[in-house]
């Protein structure tokens, strides 16, 4: 077994004076699919952003493939193999679709763009359009494709399905699963639709007010209706 792709140890982070995350620790095995759940404003986005190096860190360490990346900048973390798809999509508005994608290529040749087009044919049709001219769903596709092109070993997905048509959601989830299987990519997924997340993941953590409140397998979570109701505010998972 190679080194654990991602280990988080006692991470505390936030924005300026506001602390959001408090002592979060977990580790993910290679090729794992981890779902990060939690109610509104509990710190899911903050967790992912902290891993990507975009928040203020108050304490704790992050290890990527065994190497300590805590002191690294966002860009260096990306080069170390961390891919981040933020919740707000963060399309570059003044770049065309093709240029948006090519930023994600890092140093790979332009021909690699075809990979993205194969995943989302819609993007190929719109390749010359500017980022802002895309529909909400198209932007979501672009954002995801852009990051995948960088061939990350750990992929952080913050609600990548938001605003996507059901068919596309399915295809995308399959693509993620495929990525995890064949590419040895470890995936952290934040997703609002709990069932969908549970169907996808092989491991779950739940955040509550910035703390790790629960962790285990999807099956265990489904079985634990009490926790589901308390931490996620919904009843009746099956």
């Amino acid at each position: 077994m190679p080194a654990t792709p991602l280990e988080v140890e006692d991470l505390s982070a936030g924005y300026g004076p506001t602390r959001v995350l408090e002592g979060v620790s977990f580790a993910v095995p290679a090729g794992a699919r981890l779902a990060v759940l939690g109610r509104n404003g509990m710190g899911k986005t903050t967790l992912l952003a902290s891993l990507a190096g975009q928040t203020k860190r108050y304490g704790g360490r992050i290890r990527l493939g065994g190497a300590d990346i805590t002191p690294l900048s966002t860009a260096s973390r990306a080069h170390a193999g961390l891919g981040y798809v933020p919740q707000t999509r963060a399309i570059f508005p003044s770049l065309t679709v093709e240029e948006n994608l090519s930023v994600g290529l890092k140093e790979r040749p332009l021909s690699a763009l075809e990979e993205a087009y194969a995943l989302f044919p819609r993007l190929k049709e719109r390749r010359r359009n500017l980022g802002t001219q895309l529909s909400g769903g198209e932007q979501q596709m672009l954002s995801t494709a852009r990051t995948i092109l960088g061939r990350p070993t750990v992929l952080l997905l913050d609600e990548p399905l938001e605003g996507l048509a059901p068919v596309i959601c399915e295809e995308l989830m399959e693509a993620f699963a495929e990525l995890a299987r064949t590419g040895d990519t470890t995936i952290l997924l934040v997703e609002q639709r709990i069932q969908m997340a549970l169907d996808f993941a092989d491991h779950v953590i739940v955040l509550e007010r910035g703390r790790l409140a629960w962790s285990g397998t999807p099956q265990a979570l489904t079985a634990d209706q009490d926790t589901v109701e308390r931490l996620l505010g919904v009843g009746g998972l099956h």
Partner: protein
Amino acid sequence: MQTVLSIGVDALAYGMVLFVISIGLSVTMGLMRVTNLAHGAFAMIGGYIASYAARDLGLGYGVAVLLAVVGTVAIAIPIERLLYRRIYGAPELTQVLMTIGITFCIIGIANYVFGPTLKTIPLPQTLREPVDLGFRTIGAQRVFAIVCGLAVAAALWFLIEKTRFGVKLRASVDNAAMAAALGVRTQVVYAVSFAAAVGLAAFGGVVGAELLPVEPYYALRYMVTFLVVVSVGGTGSIPGALLACLLLSAIDTTGRYLSPEYGEFFFYLAVIAIVCLFPRGLIARAK
């Protein structure tokens, strides 16, 4: 007819000089989104270095130009690291405050070091001869400025629109955090672009010194002109800046010929009209 032609030539020459000096500003403002009011200050530093090299040290014009560009960039890099880096992405007004502060300091220092008098940059003989165009003569220096302008425009356009570096730069400006998350080393990208913009400023300051002579208040005196030209063209757009320079200089030159006493009126009325018609610049970069 002769007069018309002659005005046309003057407009072209003046426009290209403006272009050479202000294009660097178009890069900082349009691509790096820094309202860099100190642009003229860097052009001025270039002018001073060239003047010192050519006049006081007696070096050749080419060497002086090179020294000016390299020297200005060398001065600008620490300023970028210490000061500009803090205002990338800051509100426009904050940038205005900081860059005005930098301008004041540079003026004060230039005044102290070089004194308040005008500085000239001696031209080589070839650039000093008037060139005969048949219907009139024009300084060879102006022809040189026109050529430089075109060369700079082409090179810059290629760099920004056609290279990976250009894409990275534009991405970093649109959303630095996201660009970094995709592995772009935004600080390096910024530093390189800034250096390029400053180098262009210095180059323009030297090439344009015949029209806009070098003295400590250069930095403030022409600030508005540069700002106007760049935003009328559409910041960050090379063709836009070129078009704006030519158009505005044509209006300015014609107005100055026909009715100099209302020259300013024409110029600024034209600016208002153009901005109202093209509120995002003649050739706008999409945002």
